[in-house]
């Protein structure tokens, strides 16, 4: 862990909110995006990620520095997301997703280069992601969207590397099947 981060953490522990704000800014994009894909909409993602950071600040004194700060942080964020979904009782929020996923895709600044097919592809994959269960979704987000190594993922989720590997390959297969069977399936446009 780099020295600057360590300094920021110890300052935050003493109640220095300015230092903590720097930490937030450093990790906010990752936390927000993990929760965005986990929860499926921006409003919830924003609320829960803020909640997660507040929780991190509160629990900072329990962080002893034996693990990487970001793995600890992302673990708290993912758990917050899980709790949120449990609370809302939509582990599979597909029904509510329909309009929602559209709106956030349209709201998102679209690269002018992106073709219509690409757009559709993206929409499909986001939909497919939301059809997965929570554990599968979390592992795909961490591996393919956030690009974490198996080891990092195992630390964040608190599972063994073997489990991480098998879970990834299983989930990828599920996703592949889902996408191929769609009308604009990926297998057919090549």
């Amino acid at each position, binding site marked *: 862990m780099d020295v600057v981060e360590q300094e920021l953490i110890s300052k935050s522990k003493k109640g220095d*909110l300015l230092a*903590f*704000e720097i930490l*937030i*800014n450093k990790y*906010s*994009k*990752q936390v*927000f*995006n993990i929760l*965005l*894909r986990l929860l499926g909409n*921006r409003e919830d993602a*924003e609320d829960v*990620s*803020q*909640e997660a*950071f*507040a929780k991190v*600040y*509160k629990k900072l004194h329990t962080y002893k520095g034996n693990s990487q700060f970001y793995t600890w942080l992302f673990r708290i964020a993912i758990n917050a997301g899980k709790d949120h979904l449990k609370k809302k009782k939509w582990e599979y929020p597909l029904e509510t997703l329909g309009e929602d996923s559209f709106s956030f895709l349209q709201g*998102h600044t679209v690269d002018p280069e992106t073709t219509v097919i*690409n757009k559709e*592809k*993206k929409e*499909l*994959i*986001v939909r497919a*992601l939301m059809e997965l269960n929570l554990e599968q979704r979390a592992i*795909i987000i961490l591996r*393919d*969207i956030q*690009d974490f190594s198996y080891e990092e993922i195992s630390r964040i989720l608190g599972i063994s590397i073997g489990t991480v*590997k098998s879970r*990834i*390959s299983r989930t*990828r*297969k599920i*996703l*592949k099947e889902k*996408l*191929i069977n769609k009308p604009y399936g*990926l*297998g057919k446009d*090549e």
Partner: protein
Amino acid sequence: MDCKELEGKIDDYIDELLSVEETVGIKRHLEQCEKCQNNYREMKNTVDTIKSIELEKVPENFSQKIIKQIKTRKKGNKMKRFLPYAAVFIVGVLITSLLFKSPLSNAYVSETTSSDEEFAMDSRVVTDFENNQAAGIEMAKESKEDSLTIVKDEVFDIDKIIYQGTLSLDVEDANKAMEGIKDYVKENGGFVESSDNYNGSHTDSELYTSHSYLIIRVPAEKFNKVIDKLKEFGEETSTNISSTNISTEYRDIESEKESLKIQQDRLVDYLKKAEKIEDMLTIETELSRVRTELNRINTQLDHYDRMISYSTITVNLRETGTLATTVKSPFGKLLENISKGFIQSINLLLQVIHFVIVLIARMIPFAIILLPVAWFVRKKWKK
């Protein structure tokens, strides 16, 4: 490398995590096996699509919002921090109230005094009270001598009875009735022992606006007659007559008196016969003791005689005023009542402040013990 082996490694192949040899092996197999090639392409495509999901921008003012949230929570925590102290305070109050009966007792006492003030206590002790009493005692002495001689001469066994009566009357005009009673009592050889007059305040808006209180003494033989006559001064609400028979006590005391007298006479005889100064002194001491005792008994008998020959009647007079016959406007004393109410409120407020100050002072010893406990509990709680 066969198809099955390839399937197990396809993820690592796509993620480019394999060694050079393995990569070469997979490439070679893919060129040969169309099925695996298709599978790989589909998988690669899927993963690429997932990877094409870009990271979205963080909402605006994200970190500031979190900091704000943390700050407000801190305030909440501060409130929580006071919770154990508040609990200790309440426990302390309970303990003090248990140990010292009620912490309100002080306030209660002062409150009653103030509520007495409400009545605008106008206890006018009649000026001629002392004269009356003096005269009464004089009369009592006279009659005592009469009755005493009768008792002694006639039957020893005559009952010694003290009569007492309490009479409550509703009257139209308390002062008028009081004067009438006083005159009547004097005519009948009695006297007024004490008289009080309370003028009730109109804020109470009760039926009875004022009441008076009289204690009169009348000769025992006229007791019943006076009671009956007094009832004519107003509407009787309650009467209570009681008699106490003190014959036995009286006789005991009298016989004691007799024996003391005999003792006294004997001692006087001895004193005359005595020759030694030492003996004389001893007899003298004994004589003075007997005399003192005799005096005491005489005083007691006097008191009994007075009680017996002069019965006590307590008269309560309540002024009902005019009930339904005339209109009585309560607005006449509006300003006065307002100022009274204002003063009452201020008094109450001062009492409350006084009570709180006293309570805090009382709490100090408990605080010394309990505050560290509360602090300790809070620390444990946090953990």
